[in-house]
């Protein structure tokens, strides 16, 4: 087992913990860069989808996993970003401007929903964001002079400095670049006073407040960051699907994002990636084994959502720390191999904090 001895502040500030991290992340980077050259078009496209969901997942992780604010309307920000990007591109604005604009627009929407919900917590916030998501979904459908309504909206091909971003490979590299950027921003934010304040708010609002943290400010900023990342993901999603339909940004998509955060593991950026892999690849895995399943289980129409639901339920009941938490436990088991003790991993008993105000 590796024990870290920190001997300088510089070491404490580095984004990697030790050289092994650098090696493995470097290898991962090389593999990811080589994927389009080795795998077929279909898998490259799927991986692009995973990256886009991971970007939105990282955004939601900043809000739910690190600030402790629930958002059941994350898809709305994705939709706002997607339509902003597509409409601006259509108007002839270059992509290099529309991508940040999509993020900015979604961030503004995030502030707009963040401020009125400042006083809410837990359940009320969940319900309010659910309602917000439903309202945005309906607006996208009915405001057809701008969004094209149910006819959909064709997304023009983006160009960066004259280079057209075309096909699955183009979207793949673009999404990968944005994902790395988003992860870098998040990892850095989490080490600043802003990130510390967010974690403090998650752990106890009252004690954070008594330490002098401006709850309203930091919660709004967390909403803005989260929504901005979702907006970026939305802009990429527009190019991924190439044809926007308003009903793709509904409550079910929001629930998929929450599933990413939950199944991946609350409170870790790794978790968002694992969750995105899970949510995007599970349908593919089902499609592959569909014909080999006995009793025609594979052809049952509700198989996919029910499996999602089942895994979500099992995850909450048996592994609340998600895939990443389980991975850490497995890793530790190998590290400590002969000296492994069960009790070290026993879940701490938790008690619900009552929201009743008395």
């Amino acid at each position, binding site marked *: 087992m590796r024990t870290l001895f920190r001997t300088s502040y510089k070491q404490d500030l580095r984004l990697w913990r030790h050289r092994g991290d650098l090696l493995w992340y470097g290898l991962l980077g090389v593999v990811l860069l080589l994927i389009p050259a080795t795998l077929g078009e279909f898998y490259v496209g799927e991986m692009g989808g995973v990256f886009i969901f991971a970007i939105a997942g990282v955004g939601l992780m900043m809000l739910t996993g690190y600030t402790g604010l629930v958002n059941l309307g994350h898809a709305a920000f994705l939709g706002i970003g997607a339509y902003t990007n597509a409409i601006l591109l259509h108007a002839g604005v270059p992509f290099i401007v529309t991508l940040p604009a999509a993020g900015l627009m979604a961030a503004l929407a995030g502030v707009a929903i963040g401020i009125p919900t400042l006083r809410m917590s837990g359940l009320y916030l969940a319900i*309010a964001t659910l*309602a917000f998501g439903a*309202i945005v979904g309906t607006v996208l459908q009915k405001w057809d002079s701008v969004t094209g309504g149910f006819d959909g909206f064709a997304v023009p091909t983006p160009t960066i400095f004259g280079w057209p971003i075309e096909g699955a490979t183009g979207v793949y590299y673009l999404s990968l670049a944005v994902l790395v950027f988003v992860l870098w921003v998040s990892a850095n934010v989490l080490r600043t006073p802003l990130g510390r304040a967010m974690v403090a708010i998650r752990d106890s609002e009252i004690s954070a407040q008594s330490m002098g943290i401006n709850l309203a400010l930091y919660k709004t900023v967390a909403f803005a960051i989260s929504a901005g990342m979702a907006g970026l993901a939305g802009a990429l999603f527009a190019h991924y699907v190439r044809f926007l339909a308003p009903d793709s940004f509904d409550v079910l998509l929001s629930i998929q994002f*929450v599933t990413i955060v939950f199944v991946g593991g609350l409170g870790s950026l790794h978790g968002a990636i694992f969750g995105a892999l899970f949510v995007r690849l599970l349908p593919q895995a089902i499609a592959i084994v569909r014909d080999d399943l006995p009793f025609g289980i594979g052809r049952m129409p*509700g198989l996919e*959502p*029910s499996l999602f639901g089942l895994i979500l*339920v099992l995850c909450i009941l048996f592994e609340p720390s998600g895939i990443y938490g389980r991975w850490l436990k497995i890793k530790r088991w190998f590290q400590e191999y002969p000296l492994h003790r069960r009790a070290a991993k026993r879940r701490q008993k938790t008690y*619900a904090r009552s929201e009743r105000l008395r």
Partner: protein
Amino acid sequence: MVDAVRLLQLVINGAAAGCIYGLIALGFVLIYKATEMINFAQGDIMMLGGFFAFSLIAHFGLNYWVGALLAVVITAAFGFALDALILRRVIGQPQFAVVMLTLGLGFIFRAAAGITWGYDSVGFETPFTNRTVKLGGLVLGADNLSIIVGTVLLCGILYLFFSRTRLGVAMQASSQNQLAAYYMGIPVRTVFSMIWAISSGVAAVAAILLAPVSMIDVNMGFLGIKAFAAAVLGGFGSIPGALVGGVIVGISEQMAGYYLPTGFQDVTANVVLLGTLVLRPQGLFSDVLRKRV
């Protein structure tokens, strides 16, 4: 005159829809008051109740009243089992875990119903289908009237149950203070499961009352989202509030559908919900309570 009749018609239709929202919201509120959990699967439990009734009445050919009663009992038993087997295990986990758990359960219920009963809309014959009642110059659908009367009756029964029976009082005690109730010898866990049973039974009643008006299908659980508006409007801890909130949401929805351009009807419930949360987060019917450290 025509306008007044039209308006009254809208109000009655809205009140009928609102009663359904109110009944679903009642389920939320009962569970929330007792266990501080929120059941996002309430709408899907209602859907299951509707399908149970469909099976019993249309499939096995039972009498409407017997079938309805049996369906309510089965759904209530289902709710009891749900709490006893699954939800009891997550007590103490963060609230968001419960939200996700019930959302996941909702998915499972929806898929299970789709596999068992198919994805087509179904319906069954009720004594109220396609009948009208003449009240003065007003022609009312017996279906809408039955919803309103049924809701009022059910509320009366629930009121008597909670105020007059030993079990009802024990339930009130457990939701006011779990520890004190436990010390007084009330089996709090079983009582909580019974509250889940009641709330599921109420959902089944809602589905059965709704059956003459709209078909039963797998996605009828999404009504639950509108019922949130009702519960929040009523203050989320108040049982009469949930019903009044439901009626307000139902009527304003009908009004919006009639007087505003298309599209507004779909968002009315959500706008009412957000508006309430922003302007009066404690709801219409709840006392102001301040947070203490």
